[in-house]
């Protein structure tokens, strides 16, 4: 059991496998490092060191009442990176995890970072505002908050369908995958789950993105029903100086788990380029 304790006494669970250049994974809301299984097996077997932590409040980490916000997530990550003395890191973030990486770089810079991969990320801002009309209106997030309080098992079960694109004609629905998704989500504490919604939806990462001065792969499923591509990656690629865009036709928000092959090889190719 690899546990790291932060300066405020929060125990963060992480897996640290294989050896080589470190690839550090940041998962989405309200999941855990387990979602990166396919990538970690693949890259670990291709001469890379793979590390995935569970954000505070999520997965196997401690559940704290306070501290469930982007700045703290970024600082927790910074402490883990320093604890393991990681250098030349490839940071890979999914959804909210992309925000975690952006805020880390915004607060701590890219001294230890070689490259970043932002998959289906919420960047730069999910919330619909006057200057962000393509975004998602607040009512949608109010609805998620209401669902999280009323019956979050139902919320996650329902969410698993559009998450993996299982509501599309001709998709290969995996019931066990939906159960797995729901289980991982239920591991997260109620407070972290609730607080996390505002964090991923309302945080404006525009200034953080401008500070990402390393090669960045901006990847997104074209049929992502959770984080629509128009408001996110299509904008991110314009804000990050050295960014390239890679989209996956028919790809869902959960493509790294459901249809990982193309992404895995793109990931490896990017790391090695």
């Amino acid at each position, binding site marked *: 059991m690899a546990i790291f304790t932060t300066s405020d006494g929060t125990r963060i669970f992480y897996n640290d496998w294989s050896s080589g250049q470190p690839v550090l994974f940041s998962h989405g809301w309200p999941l855990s490092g387990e979602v990166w299984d396919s990538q970690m097996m693949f890259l670990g077997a291709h001469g890379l060191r793979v590390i995935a932590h569970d954000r505070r409040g999520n997965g196997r980490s401690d559940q704290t009442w306070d501290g469930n916000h982007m700045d703290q997530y970024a600082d927790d990550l910074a402490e883990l990176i320093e604890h393991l003395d990681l250098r030349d890191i490839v940071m890979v973030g999914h959804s909210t995890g992309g925000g975690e990486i952006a805020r880390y770089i915004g607060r701590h810079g890219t001294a230890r970072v070689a490259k970043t991969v932002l998959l289906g990320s919420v960047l730069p801002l999910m919330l619909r505002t006057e200057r962000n*009309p393509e975004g998602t209106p607040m*009512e*949608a997030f109010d*609805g998620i908050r209401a669902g999280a309080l009323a019956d979050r098992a139902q919320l996650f079960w*329902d*969410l698993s369908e*559009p998450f993996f694109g299982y509501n599309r004609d001709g998709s290969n629905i995996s019931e066990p995958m939906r159960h797995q998704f729901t289980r991982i989500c239920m591991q997260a504490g109620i407070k972290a789950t609730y607080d996390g919604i505002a964090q991923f939806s309302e945080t404006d990462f525009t200034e953080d993105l401008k500070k990402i001065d390393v090669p960045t792969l901006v990847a997104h499923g074209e049929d992502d*029903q959770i984080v629509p591509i128009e408001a996110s990656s299509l904008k991110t690629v314009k804000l990050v100086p050295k960014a390239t865009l890679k989209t996956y036709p028919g790809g869902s928000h959960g493509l790294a788990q459901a249809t990982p092959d193309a992404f895995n090889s793109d990931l490896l190719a990017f790391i090695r380029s």
Partner: protein
Amino acid sequence: MSPGESDHSVFETMVIPMVELDTSGLRSLLAKAHIGTTSDLAGRIDADAGFVTGAIAAVRVVYANPAAIELLGGSGPGETMGEFGRLRASGTADGFRREIEAMLERRPSFSDETHVRRTDGSDLPIVYTSWSPSGNLASDRQLVSLTDISERVRIAQTLSRLRSELAHAGRISMLGELSASITHEVNQPLTAIVANAQAGLRWLDRDEPAIGEIKAALETIVLAGQRATDVVARMRAMSTKQALELRPLSINDLIEETLLFLSHELVKHQVRVRLDLTTEPAFVSADRTQLQQVLVNLLMNAAQAMADARSWRRILTIRSRLGSGTIRVEIEDTGPGVRAADQDRLFDTFFTTKTEGMGMGLPICRSIVEAHGGMLEVSSRPSLGATFRFGLSLVGPMAVQPESSTTA
């Protein structure tokens, strides 16, 4: 003043048209026929269909004020006085029957919307109010005021016509919004027709033409052609401009047909439909085009609301439930819902929460539902969705529609 005459000086200068009736002849007719109650009257009318007409003939107009003479036309009182029947337009006997009932029940007054016949033979819609100086109608003298409501009737008819035109405009606008879907729905069978025809020609070109394959291709062409024809027919039905035509129709059938009409749009908005319809047959008296317009509008609103809000969960539930003598239809979505403050204004003309909305759809829907005798209502749990509901009276499947009244 001679005995038996009323003092008419007060009425001479009144602007309200007034006549005075001598109903002594009617009262002795009723007494002779032993009619003392409304059921006596009913029995007598059953036996003698012309009784009420005969009763009218027993009443005499003994005075008409200048305002009444002007209303009824003619050059002097002579043309107005005398037979009461001359004043009454044809087809108003039923109203007089109710006036006799009011007399039998000794009511103080009687009021009715009806028509009078003017001296030139034309009909005028009026409010007819009769009362007696003695305090109840069971006396020999009745005073009647005649209030011209032709302007009001004209305005109501114009309103009805405008509502119809507005509803029609709403349908045309809706067809505009759906044009991409409609084009797609027509293109699909057309593409199938061309592809199958080409395949058929290829099969024909062989040394031994494959008759079986050609036949299959032709059968597919027939089916595809039928589908395209159906789409066009639905579109045509939607775009007709005609007055409200009420017929018995099955609510569940209409709902399912509407879903067929919108299937492409619903897929486009990534909406899943759940049907929760009553299993018993349920017929309402409705104008098919207009009621379908309401359903299309509500379903499209729901689909657009969920898509616009990027809802992760987009489920549209359509329910039909039998009440006592009514059927309730509910359309529920899992979109952002409607804020309490907006709920009251939702049906106001030109109010819209859509970025590109005109705000006419819901007012038109409410107007149509009201014209069908129902009420369109909304309830919402903010952020969890909205439900639109209306109820209509049930009729038998073969119900014959009653004739509409002469006043609008």
